[in-house]
């Protein structure tokens, strides 16, 4: 390529790398903060002069400030709750969305068009349109402050059905008809043919839902009342709100532990995720 082109390209790469520093810095800083002793929290240097595990230890064993008072964080509970809620939501969403998507993709039935377009219409509605009534419903059922209050609404994911339906429509009908002739019932055709063939789309949906549920704030904020039921997002937010104590270090340690799994997951599933995102955009 021409010299001018090469200079331009190098310039662009340099600019991009420089810009990327603004993205890497906050994460590096968050990790560095989590290893700083209390005395260095407010200091100017990015990296701790005396790195320590103290902040992480406080997550596990409590924050001792003063001989009498030990502030216990139920971080283990937060983690456990988040994992339970995320995994269960994932499993339910994948199964029910796939089943519904398969039905939309491969069956004709009365009310199909109406239902489908109603579902698409609700995709545009904000969470605020449903959160107050949902809260009322769960309080009436005495299910506030439970896992169900967070998991069940997650099952209704119009976008997931849309994504899966688009993908399933590409599965050749002949394949399914052949199975039908061989005597496979509708559910078997779903379980043994459609599901395995839809793995890419299912993988993409799984990653999206994982990230969404793991990081969700508003819904758990409204539904959860007791510290032992908090998810990571609520737990970390609440750390700030306690009596204005110096908790930045602990909060950063908590944030690191809460963020790293998601980052690892996305790094590992990168290709899957990106191709799914791209596919989803174009069908939309």
């Amino acid at each position, binding site marked *: 390529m021409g010299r001018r082109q090469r200079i331009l390209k190098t310039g662009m*790469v340099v*600019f*991009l*790398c420089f*810009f*990327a520093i603004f*993205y*890497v810095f906050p*994460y590096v*800083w*968050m990790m560095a903060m989590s290893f700083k002793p209390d005395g260095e929290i*407010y200091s100017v240097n990015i990296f701790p002069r005396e790195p320590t595990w103290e902040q992480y230890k406080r997550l596990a064993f409590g924050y001792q400030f003063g001989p009498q008072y030990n502030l216990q964080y139920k971080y283990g509970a937060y983690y456990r709750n988040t994992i339970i809620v995320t995994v269960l939501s994932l499993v339910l969403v994948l199964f*029910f969305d796939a*089943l*519904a998507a*398969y*039905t939309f993709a491969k*069956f004709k*039935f009365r009310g*199909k068009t109406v239902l489908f377009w109603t579902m698409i219409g*609700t995709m*545009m*509605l*904000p*969470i*605020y*349109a*449903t959160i*107050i*009534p949902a809260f*009322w*419903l769960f*309080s009436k059922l005495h299910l506030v402050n439970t896992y169900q209050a967070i998991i*069940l*609404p997650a*099952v*209704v994911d119009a976008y997931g*059905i849309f994504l899966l339906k688009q993908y399933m429509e590409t599965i050749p009908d002949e394949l399914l008809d052949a199975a039908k002739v061989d005597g496979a*019932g*509708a*559910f078997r055709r*779903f379980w043994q043919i459609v599901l395995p063939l839809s793995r890419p789309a299912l993988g993409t949906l799984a990653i999206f839902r994982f990230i969404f549920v793991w*990081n969700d*704030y*508003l819904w758990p904020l409204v539904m959860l009342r007791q510290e032992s039921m908090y998810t990571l*997002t609520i737990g*970390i937010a609440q750390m*700030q709100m306690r009596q204005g104590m110096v908790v930045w270090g602990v909060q950063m340690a908590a*944030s690191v532990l*809460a*963020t790293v799994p*998601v*980052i690892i997951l*996305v790094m590992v599933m990168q290709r899957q995720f*990106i191709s799914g*995102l*791209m596919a989803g*955009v*174009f069908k*939309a």
Partner: protein
Amino acid sequence: MTVADTSQQRREATWSRLWEKLTPYVFISPFFLGFLAFMLIPIAFSIFLSLARWDGMRAIEFAGLQNFIDLFQDKRFWNAFRVTMLITVTCTIVGPAGSLFLAVLLDKAGERIAGWLRAIFFLPSVTSAVVITYIWKQLYSADYGYFNAFLQQLGLPVQQWLNDPKLVVPAIMVMLIWAGLGWDALIFSAGLKTIPEELYDQAKIDGAGDWAEFWHVTFPLLRPCLLFVLVTSVIFLLGIFAQIQLMTDGGPMHVSENLSLYLYQSGFQYHKFGYASAIAVVLTIMMVVGSWLNFRFVRLEV
């Protein structure tokens, strides 16, 4: 073959035909029940609540349009409306424009580096808004935040980023734009990849420079992507909550309070669920109108 056999077979055939007809309904019912219970009925109930007064404990009293009348006379509502519009419009213009620019640069930068860079820019999208907000809250800290430290190095006066009424909303917007760039850039990158090389080659043969190439080849073909990015940005920005609540809780003195925060406080702190539902109705209408406007705007660029 006896008569009993054939009627047995006929019964089995009827059952299996019945099952065939019922299958789609059975398969769709779990989703549909959930959809009814957590989407349709709540939406209807929200609308009903917006026309009523309820504190969550006593009976629901029907109040007609009173909530909306009160809302439109409420200074705090209009303030929140203004903040919401400011954040949404500004970030929807700057964000996608910046992402598009970024995506174009990435496209020209060579695949290997671009892959790593895209992942880096994407980090905020997989990070909880809670974590992002607290990191930025510290960066903006008046006493020991890095932004002020940087200003001090340059000999410039230190700023009260989160306490100065003039600076707090822009400060939040910078964080929002930073956080959203990677996601949108990824979508644009996907769009850019679908543009066939031949079109660029043809443009070069026709003597088009870089800018003309962008404007006449790239931009028109990115229109579906642009629409998607704009619509999702508007919907997302109209409803941001954690970022505002945790950064400033609407402060100082409601200067940075947006409609979602006002909605949340009206409902879950002041227990005025009818009023909060009215705000929810307004927000929903804003989202629908916002989406519609984007559809018109992007189409018009023929």
